[in-house]
């Protein structure tokens, strides 16, 4: 097995810096071989190590409240919802693959986030997404938009998980850099959760699911590089999603977890076998012996490097309790799933990989992983000049609006504000027959049943939210508004906001002005989460969302989950009965900075964004929730893009079967 000699240049080509290469040599006490270099390069990529973001993320409120695990401890957040149940949720990005191949990029994004949820033993009950594209006048953007929506629909529908909420924005800055964030929410009995851990000397390690091919090698590092003309050529391999295999994997995984035969299990996302073996071992403080000859492969002649780094979809790594191997195989056979024992756990904290009779890697797992030996950097930051310029904008220079009607129609027909019915009609929003508030209003609401099908008279409300324009103009307050607005959407349905997951889509962290936006946004997010007592359960960071022409708006997408304590509190967004009184809660100020109106009517993206008093916001939300719980409120809708005018119009037409009107003083 010829392996290329490892030199500094080869390390640099793998995206490692000189210091990182030296650090690897110090850890191993020798120069790594080609396979080991591949393992470190993918584990220390931005995507897996969070090396440029973890220092900031640590400042977020990441534990407390109803959290059963603090952020980063497990694959997804786990929040207590009473009755012995927990809600498990997370959001992740698949931006770069979707820019290259929209359908498969989005589909595999859904597949990956679903696995993060059911690997914890939770059955997915709802899927959401947050999509951003360049303007639809451009044919490429229409192609990307159509492909992404179809990919999300086909994968989620085939899997049988209702896609119930989301948002779609169209801005020039997303030209060439679409953002595709996918979120999944699941329910699990608290005593039936699983952990991504490998421990217990001698316990067998199984790989379950599809065969391993050369898909997406360097997928992890791929996400850590800027998209450039030649990056399309470098990636002939597109990862293809198989939602049918995922459905089998979902059912088999839940069955194995509930049978109590697993020590631990983790899905294979970016960096495939490498990431799952190292992370599970590091978490258990143990090691593994892995024999790659036992890995079911899809192509001949694959090298150890390729098998370890392959990102073939729909695969899990499971540590089975010694003696339960037969039971694990029986469950996999029932679901026609490949299930191969590829090694065992060892007490010595070393990952030893063998292939064709040779040892091809020996690495201390702890040294590879986030929170272990992975590097942590504190990047330079500098405030971009445009922010102060924008805040000095003099609104009095704007010509007055002659006709309010035409201004309103211009805003209300903006692609960012119009109904996204064309999108969500392609999603199965009702499979599992628990969707009690359909998309079109604020948060979607899904009824909760116990794993054995009993009605708990409770429901989960969930919403994804972020106004990238606000964060661009004022990163700190813009991120606060993203959190606050997602909470408003949840409260408006009658739910108490519980916790947050986030998907932080930003540019190149090595550019100080980009990192300033990231740092300020994370700080703002933390302040809002503390004020609303909605801790951060985890999420995902996606840097390098830039192409030679432009960088995306800083987009910290927030996924908020709330609990409807009693189904009687369910509150739709549309007007329901003639004669009902309409109340506007909260103060309206003359603030049009960064608004949809300013952009659509005046073609400007400038000014300072609306002010925000976090304490007042909390009180307002809790007051509305109290009124809902007293049965005073027939419907509620948050005022956001398009302002009060759009909100009122939406309340009239969201219920497509019974539209209504309204008179307002």
């Amino acid at each position, binding site marked *: 097995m010829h392996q290329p000699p490892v030199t500094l240049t080869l390390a640099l080509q793998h995206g490692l810096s000189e210091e990182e290469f030296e650090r690897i040599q110090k850890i191993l006490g020798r120069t790594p071989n080609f396979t080991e270099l591949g393992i470190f390069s993918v584990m220390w990529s931005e995507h897996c190590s969070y090396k440029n973001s973890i220092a900031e993320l640590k400042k977020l409120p990441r534990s407390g409240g109803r959290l059963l695990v603090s952020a980063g401890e497990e694959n997804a957040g786990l929040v207590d919802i009473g009755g012995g149940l927990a809600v498990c949720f997370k959001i992740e990005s698949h931006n770069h693959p979707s820019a*290259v*191949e929209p359908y498969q990029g989005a589909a595999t994004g859904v597949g990956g986030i679903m696995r993060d949820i059911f690997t914890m033993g939770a059955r997915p009950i709802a899927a959401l997404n947050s999509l951003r594209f360049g303007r639809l006048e451009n044919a490429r953007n229409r192609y990307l938009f159509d492909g992404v929506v179809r990919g999300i629909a086909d994968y989620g529908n085939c899997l049988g998980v209702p896609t119930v909420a989301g948002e779609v924005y169209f801005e020039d800055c997303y030209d060439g850099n679409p953002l595709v964030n996918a979120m999944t929410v699941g329910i699990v009995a608290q005593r039936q959760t699983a952990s991504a851990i490998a421990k217990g000397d001698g316990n067998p390690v199984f790989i379950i699911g599809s065969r391993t091919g050369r898909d997406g090698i360097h997928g992890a590092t791929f996400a850590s590089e800027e998209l450039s003309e030649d990056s399309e050529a470098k990636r*002939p*391999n*597109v990862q*293809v999603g*198989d939602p*049918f295999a995922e459905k089998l994997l979902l059912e088999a995984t839940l069955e194995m977890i509930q049978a109590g035969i697993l020590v631990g299990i983790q899905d294979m996302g970016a960096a495939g076998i490498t990431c799952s073996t190292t992370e599970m071992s590091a978490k258990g403080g143990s090691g593994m012996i892995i024999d790659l000859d036992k890995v079911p492969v899809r*192509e001949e002649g694959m090298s150890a490097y390729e098998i370890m780094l392959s990102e073939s*979809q729909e695969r899990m790594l499971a540590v089975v309790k010694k003696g339960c191997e037969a039971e694990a195989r029986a469950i996999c056979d029932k679901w026609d799933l490949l299930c191969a024992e590829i090694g065992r756990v060892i007490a010595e904290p070393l990952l030893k990989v063998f292939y064709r009779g040779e040892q091809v890697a020996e690495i201390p797992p702890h040294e590879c992983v986030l929170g272990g030996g992975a590097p942590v950097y504190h990047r330079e930051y500098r405030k971009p000049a445009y922010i102060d310029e924008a805040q000095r904008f003099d609104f009095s220079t704007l010509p007055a609006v002659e006709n309010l009607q035409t201004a309103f129609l211009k805003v209300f027909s903006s692609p960012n504000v119009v109904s996204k019915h064309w999108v969500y009609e392609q999603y199965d929003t009702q499979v599992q027959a628990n969707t009690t508030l359909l998309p079109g209003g604020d948060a979607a609401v899904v009824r909760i049943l116990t794993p054995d099908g009993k009605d708990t008279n409770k429901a989960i409300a969930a919403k994804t939210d972020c106004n990238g324009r606000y964060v661009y103009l004022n990163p700190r307050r813009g991120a606060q508004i993203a959190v606050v607005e997602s909470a408003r959407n949840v409260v408006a349905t009658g739910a108490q906001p519980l916790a947050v997951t986030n998907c932080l889509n930003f540019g190149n962290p090595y550019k100080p002005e980009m990192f300033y936006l990231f740092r300020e946004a994370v700080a703002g997010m933390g302040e809002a989460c503390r004020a609303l007592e909605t801790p951060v359960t985890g999420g995902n960071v996606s840097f390098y969302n830039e192409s030679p022409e432009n960088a995306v708006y800083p987009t910290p997408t927030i996924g908020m989950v709330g609990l409807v304590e009693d189904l009687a509190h369910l509150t739709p967004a549309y007007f329901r009965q003639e004669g009902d009184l309409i109340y506007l809660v909260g103060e309206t100020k003359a603030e049009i900075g960064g608004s949809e109106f300013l952009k659509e009517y005046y073609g400007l993206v400038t000014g300072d964004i609306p002010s925000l008093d976090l304490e007042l916001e909390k009180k307002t939300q809790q007051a509305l929730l109290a009124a809902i719980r007293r049965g005073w409120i027939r419907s509620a809708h948050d005022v956001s893009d398009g302002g009060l005018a759009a909100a009122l119009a939406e309340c009239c037409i969201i219920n497509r079967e019974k539209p209504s009107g309204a008179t307002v003083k």
Partner: protein
Amino acid sequence: MRVAVKVRLKRSILDPQGKTVQQALQHLGFEQIREVRIGKLIELEIEEGQNRAETLRMIEEASRKLLSNPVMEDFEIEYPGETP
């Protein structure tokens, strides 16, 4: 005149549909069928009049631009009367 364009997934790309159909065929006793790959057969009804070279050039352009996705598919043009 009818011309067919065969659009196939590139060899290296996984074909979950082909894999599932192959397993089903095995289950039905067709053991000799080792692998199944499913692609598109796009048949174009073309106005007569141009010579063969021009028609081929036109179909090639249509195939590259719209009928196939170069990121993950190859195409092959089957002109009437020629062995594929």
